[in-house]
């Protein structure tokens, strides 16, 4: 499972060893910049292989550090108010706590809720409608969207090239001071790649770590989950990465979901199944954040489904849940909170100079 990443890291080490060897041989090579230090991710047991191809963008300490700085730099937005981390808050599972719709520059608002961005290296496509096809280019959308960070990419690159601090960090991460969009996006990708969540109580129970066990209510909730939720919120990622219409009535924004991406009426009102990991820390819920409380979500599936031509067969008749089952589900979902993600000091905000 970890083999691929380890292999890549191993290759990087090899290349670096060889490069060092060459350096010693060729006199006159100043070699003032130390090479970036390879980093290997400790990936959770039982997870699938990452979808993201690290071969073009091997993780390094300096690359991750640059990505982290970029992630928290509000100057990446048109009016220097919005950083990536502004909407993607660590304590909220890298979603936007208590905000139904995403915020942007000049007080603007987007049309969907901020998704939590962890375990992104396992995702095949991005955004609620799956419109973005590669993790590296994902940041391009919020950066340039006028309702989000609203920046002109060319201007931004020029600005960063003029900043001695950025030049220093690009040099450390990529060997020269040149600021390019490819380097910038790859660095952000490296940082986002380190946001992996697979160390919740649920994981400890499943992987039999330290004798962890579910309480009777958690266990009952897990059984309800397996019977009524797991078909879409598939373990271990708690999403099967499909696009489905869950019977949520269309909102006032007339958001048709994935149909906009595929031009196919069969995709009307379909949105990506979100993960349930850290779900109790990442309210509000649904693609437009219409529910602020997880019990509203339970109630919606119990008796709020509105059937259209594209409503998923699995929810067409609702998902009946008794009050006891809702309570049990709540306790189970609570075991999906991963404090090693929410409180990891290496993912927290960094001061911007």
């Amino acid at each position, binding site marked *: 499972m970890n083999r691929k990443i*380890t292999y890549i*890291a191993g290759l990087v080490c090899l290349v670096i060893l060889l490069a060092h060897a060459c350096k010693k041989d060729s006199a006159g090579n100043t070699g003032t910049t130390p090479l970036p230090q390879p980093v290997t991710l400790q990936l959770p047991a039982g997870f699938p292989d990452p979808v993201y191809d690290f071969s073009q963008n091997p993780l390094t300490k300096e690359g991750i550090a640059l990505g982290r700085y970029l992630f928290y730099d509000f100057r990446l937005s048109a009016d220097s108010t919005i950083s990536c981390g502004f909407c993607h808050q660590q304590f909220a599972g890298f979603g936007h706590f208590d905000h139904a719709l995403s915020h942007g520059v000049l007080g603007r608002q987007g049309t969907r809720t901020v998704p939590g961005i962890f375990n992104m290296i396992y995702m095949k496509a991005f955004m609620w409608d799956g419109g*973005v096809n590669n993790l590296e*280019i994902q940041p391009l959308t919020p950066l340039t*969207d006028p309702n989000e960070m609203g920046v002109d990419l060319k201007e931004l*690159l020029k600005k960063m090239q003029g900043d001695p601090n950025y030049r220093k960090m690009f040099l450390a991460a990529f060997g020269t001071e040149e600021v390019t969009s490819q380097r910038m996006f790859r660095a952000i990708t490296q940082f986002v790649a*380190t946001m992996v969540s697979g160390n919740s109580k649920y994981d400890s129970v499943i992987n039999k770590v330290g004798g962890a066990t579910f309480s009777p209510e958690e266990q009952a909730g897990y059984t309800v989950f397996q019977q009524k939720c797991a078909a879409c919120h598939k373990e271990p990622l708690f999403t099967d990465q499909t696009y489905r219409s869950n019977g949520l009535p269309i909102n006032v924004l007339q958001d048709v979901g994935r149909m906009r991406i595929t031009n196919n009426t069969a995709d009307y009102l379909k949105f990506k199944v979100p993960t349930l990991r850290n779900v109790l820390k990442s309210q509000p819920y649904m693609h437009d954040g219409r529910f602020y409380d997880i019990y509203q979500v339970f109630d919606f599936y119990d008796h709020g489904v509105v059937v259209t031509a594209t409503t998923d067969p699995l929810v067409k008749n609702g998902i009946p849940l008794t009050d006891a089952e809702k309570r049990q589900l709540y306790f189970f979902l609570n075991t999906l909170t991963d404090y090693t993600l929410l409180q990891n000091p290496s993912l927290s905000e960094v001061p911007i100079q």
Partner: protein
Amino acid sequence: MILRIFRSRTFTILSFSGILSLMACSKSENNQTIVPPATYSSLQLSFSNYVGNVPLQRNAGTYTNAARETYTISKFLYYISNFQLVDSSGKVTTLPPRYFLVDDAIDSTKKIILDSVPVGRYTAIRWLIGVDSIRNVSGVQAGALAPENGMFWTWNSGYIMAKLEGNSPAAPTALKEFQLHIGGFKFPYNALKTVTLNLPVTAIVAKGTQPKLSFRADAGKWLDAPNAISFATTTIVMAAGTDALKIAENYQQMFTVMTVAN
């Protein structure tokens, strides 16, 4: 999440020895006929943008389409990539992958050099208008393919293969502008088009020479045939779909060879 610096020496040594043994294997088994190394030279392509028979003048020239609507052009850009050469025996040589963005506003983009061209006598050239599907799904790219060139759709990943923008009194938009951004690399809206152009004179690529081929790209062809485009009904195209497909079928016809200089 724990980050850990990779320190496994054993693994490094293992992979190192693995590669060494692979090298050893390939050496001992490579007893086939030795093919003499091909000699390479280069080829220069230059592009002149036209509308019909007159050179394109952005924001200045006024033109008329098949629907008898007048228009001006403010932006004209197209990707060309995946070059192939055909010799007189019909043998097709695929050149190493290169991507160029020709932008009418930037003269330096209108002259491109293809290197690593095997020496030979070529009677036709072939390229893709746009960016192949692989590059549309492989993450962030650099150079001509860098996203800041404004030729990449952010909300629905994929390259804009070619772009024509301007104004027409027939356009129903507030500022009378039209914007034709043509893209799409997936079935059923795959707008990738290949062009094959026969050369009127054989291009002789030899060691130390660089034949010069010049081409005309007629922006007017976007609007005429086989699918007549009226700005009254096709004004803004900014997604893959049937409109993009129709225009791609049209612009597939836009290139002609002007000269071949050996």
